[in-house]
Every structure is written in structure tokens, then in C-alpha cells.
């Protein structure tokens, strides 16, 4: 009887325990990341943080994340713009709504696809590289060396990555918008033979300050998330075997949070607009 009870206890309680432990672990991870994000943002506004932040490290981050990604972002933007241009130019002409070409380009490229696709490229290139770089620093004891020198890791590693990612993402997004719209206009001109000037005019008429504001807010937040998630996973590598795992976690974590934030901001924006309008 005692044995049966024991078996039942094991079968019933152990899974509950493991679910509980997993939940606690994930909650701790989320709180730790919020803590890191909070320390980083606060650090940017303190004199000590600003004094210790390295401009060279920020420039390096911008060069790697922004400048080196121009070709891949350009290619994605061009294919995106051409695809949307083809769909908008052909289908909308059929239903007699060709005057909305500009609106479609602005909504899809500027407000939605620009920030999201750009952040995906940054996650795949720079987020992964940052997690691997910091993970390797941990393994080679460079992080321990910084600690023992009394160097605040937030100042030296996280803040430059944080600012570099945000600056790069905002610039890459503007670049993405320009290339995608040029691609869309080019294909629309080819397909429906509308005058360039009229198409450009439609796009400019459709752009509102709020579109630029929303997409810039998205880029700021996505850049911050990518930097914090990647730095966090890099700093929690315990040995060399876990570097690839840290990279994987940084990429997946950044994508998940970015998707959730994108949905929340978009839904929030439309809900606010409908309520206000």
C-alpha cells in the first residue's frame, strides 16, 4: 500500500514540481532581463554611466550592426518593395483602387515591415554575434578580468551595445523604407505605367508623422530588446559548450519578444487611433 502511494506521489507530484520549477526559472529570467534593461537605461542617465561609456565601442557596434548589414537589408527591402509594389499595382488597379497605392506602401513598409524585417536581420547578425562575443569573453575570463578591475559590465559591454543597436536599427529602418519604396515605385511604373511623379506624390501624401513615430518607437524598443537579451544570454555562459546555446537562446528570445512587442504596439496604435478618431 505504502509502495503504491509512493508511486502515485511520484507520478503526480514530480511533474507538478518540474512545471513549478520551470515556471520559477522562466520568471526569474524575465525579471533578471528587466533588471538588466532597467540598470542600462538608468545608467544612461547617470553621470557615472555617461562618463564610463566608450564612444569607440558604440561606433564599433554601429559599424558592425548598421554599416555591415546594408547589403543584406537592402536586398530584403528591395524584394519586399517589389513584391508589395506588384500586388498593389496589379490587384488595386483591377478593383479601381489604384489611388491607394501610396497608402498601402506606407502602411506595409514604413509602419509594419520596415521595423520588423530590419530587426530580424539585426537579430540574426548582430544579436547572435553579440551573444557569442560576450559568451566567449566569459569563457576566456575577460569578463572576470573586467570584474576584478572594478569595471562595471553594464558600462563597458551592455550600454555601448544597447546604444549601438538602437542607433543602427533606426538608421537601417530608414534605409529599408527608402529602398523598399523605390523598389515598389519602380515596379508599379513598369506594370501600370503611371507617372513616377504621381506615384511619389501618392506615397508622400500617405506618410503621416504618426507612421514615422510609431515605426521609430518600434525600432527603439526592438534595438533595446535585442541588445539586452543578447548580452544577458552571453553573460550567463558557464563554459565553452554553452556558447552555441546562448546564441540560440539570444536569437529565439529576441525574435519572440520582438514579435510580441510588434503585435502589442500595432494593436495598441490602432486601438488608440480608433478611440481618439
Amino acid at each position, binding site marked *: 500500500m505504502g509502495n503504491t502511494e509512493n508511486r502515485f506521489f511520484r507520478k503526480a507530484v514530480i511533474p507538478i514540481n518540474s512545471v513549478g520549477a520551470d515556471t520559477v526559472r522562466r520568471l526569474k529570467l524575465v525579471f533578471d532581463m528587466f533588471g538588466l534593461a532597467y540598470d542600462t537605461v538608468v545608467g544612461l542617465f547617470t553621470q557615472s554611466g555617461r562618463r564610463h561609456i566608450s564612444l569607440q565601442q558604440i561606433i564599433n557596434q554601429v559599424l558592425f550592426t548598421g554599416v555591415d548589414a546594408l547589403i543584406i537589408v537592402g536586398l530584403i527591402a528591395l524584394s519586399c518593395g517589389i513584391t508589395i509594389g506588384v500586388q498593389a499595382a496589379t490587384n488595386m488597379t483591377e478593383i479601381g483602387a489604384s489611388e491607394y497605392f501610396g497608402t498601402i506602401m506606407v502602411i506595409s513598409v514604413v509602419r509594419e515591415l520596415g521595423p520588423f524585417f530590419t530587426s530580424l536581420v539585426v537579430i540574426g547578425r548582430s544579436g547572435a554575434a553579440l551573444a557569442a562575443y560576450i559568451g566567449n569573453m566569459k569563457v576566456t*575570463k575577460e569578463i572576470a578580468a573586467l570584474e*576584478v578591475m572594478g569595471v562595471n559590465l553594464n558600462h563597458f559591454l551592455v550600454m555601448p551595445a544597447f546604444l549601438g543597436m538602437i542607433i543602427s536599427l533606426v538608421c537601417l529602418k530608414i534605409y529599408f523604407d527608402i529602398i523598399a519604396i523605390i523598389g515598389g515605385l519602380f515596379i508599379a511604373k513598369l506594370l501600370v505605367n503611371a507617372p513616377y511623379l504621381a506615384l511619389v506624390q501618392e506615397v508622400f501624401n500617405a506618410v503621416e508623422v504618426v507612421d514615422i513615430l510609431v515605426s521609430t518607437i518600434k525600432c527603439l524598443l526592438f534595438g533595446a530588446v535585442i541588445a539586452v537579451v543578447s548580452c544577458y544570454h552571453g553573460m550567463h555562459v558557464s563554459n565553452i559548450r554553452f556558447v552555441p546555446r546562448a546564441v540560440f537562446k539570444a536569437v529565439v528570445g529576441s525574435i519572440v519578444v520582438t514579435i510580441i512587442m510588434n503585435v502589442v504596439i500595432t494593436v495598441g496604435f490602432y486601438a488608440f487611433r480608433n478611440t481618439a478618431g
Partner: protein
Amino acid sequence: MPSEIQLDNISYSYGSETLFTDVSFAIGHGRMVVLMGSSGCGKSTLLEISAGLLEPVTGTVRWNGYDIHRIPQQELITERRKTGYVFQRHALISNLTVFDNIALPLRYHTTMPDKALSAMIEQHLERMGITDIRNKLPEALSVGQARLASIARALIMRPEFLFLDEPVSGLDPVTARSIISVLSKLCRQSNLTIFMVSHIISFIEQLQCPILLLDNKTVTRFETIAEARAVGGASLFDASLNEGN
């Protein structure tokens, strides 16, 4: 207050494996002490605990009377400025040149003008005999050059405590001799408290300093290597500690 490192009842385990228990010792102001022991016995772990990089399972570590695992973060950063640490695998920041690596703690903790900072670093580079590698990245350095650069970085803030993990392991005799000469001079001239880990007997013999032997999960102090050999057993030295001798 005299500079000293004091460890009381330190225990540490990796998972279920206990590395050492109830380890207690003190290193006085301006003294140099070497920690010896066979491979894998926990020498580097004990050094990292002493330097405040690892927290022990039980026990306290005090620098100048401050319990470094209990003091607030800001005070710990201030205390850390008084220490230098030389890692076994140099741990130079990979994207900074030797000059920038040595300048890092100075730039972070002080507002020293560039000219004075450069002069100070040049002086350290000269003392270590590595002026020709000042603009090289760590990846371009030999093991010996990287170790010397790492020692220069550890000394740049004029620390009160210097921790070294296997400072001459894997080095050629010439570089090893120059490190021995620098360490001996430092101990004599600048009242630096040095705690190091080594398993190379010829090196320890040249330093002529007290020895802590980590064996059977505990630490025993000896004043000379001959005493350690006599009490600890010659077989222990011959079997486990003779590498590089």
C-alpha cells in the same frame, strides 16, 4: 590598518564534489605566498575565492578587514581597485590593443590626462620589457608576451593585493626569469601583498617565500619548500608538482 588577506573556514564544492573544507589562512602586509597542490585540487578556485571572483559555500574572505562577499556593490568596486589579478590565460580584452588593455582600468577609474596616462603606461611597458608590442592585439601575442601584458595591466592601478594564477606556466626560461625578477622587486620595494598559485617547483624555490599546500581538501602552511617537501612527502611533489621543473 595593515593590508592583509584573511580567509576563515572556507569551503567550496562543485555539485556534489567537495574541493576543500574549513580552509583558513592569512597573508600579511607586503608578503608573498604561493599556493601549491596537485592538478584539479582546487588551487585556482581558492585563488578566485580569495580575489572575490567566486563566493565560497561557507566562510569569509577579508581584505583589510572588509568581508568582500558582504559589502555593498559600490564599496566592493572601490576595494577591487586595490587589487590586481593575473589569469592563467591572460584574459586580455580581445578587441583592445596591449596599450588600451593596460590603460583600461586607469581610464575607467581616473580622469588622468592622456599625456600622463601614456607616460605611466610606457613606464609599465618598459618595466615588463614589452614596449614593442604596445599596439598589438592580444591574438598576435605569444603566451609570454600576453602574460607580461596581463601583469602590467594588473599593476597599473598600483594595487595593494596581487593575485596570480600560474604566472610562469608554459613560459620559456627567459620570460619566467623576468617575471620572477619583477615579482621579487615588487614585493621588496612596494609592499605589495602577493598571493599566487603555481605548481612549478623551480619557480617557487627561486621566490623563497612561504608555501600553502592544498592537499586532502585542506591547506597547510610551510615556511620553506624544503619543509613542505619533508612534511608533505617527497612523493607528492615528485608525482604531482614536478611539471615544468
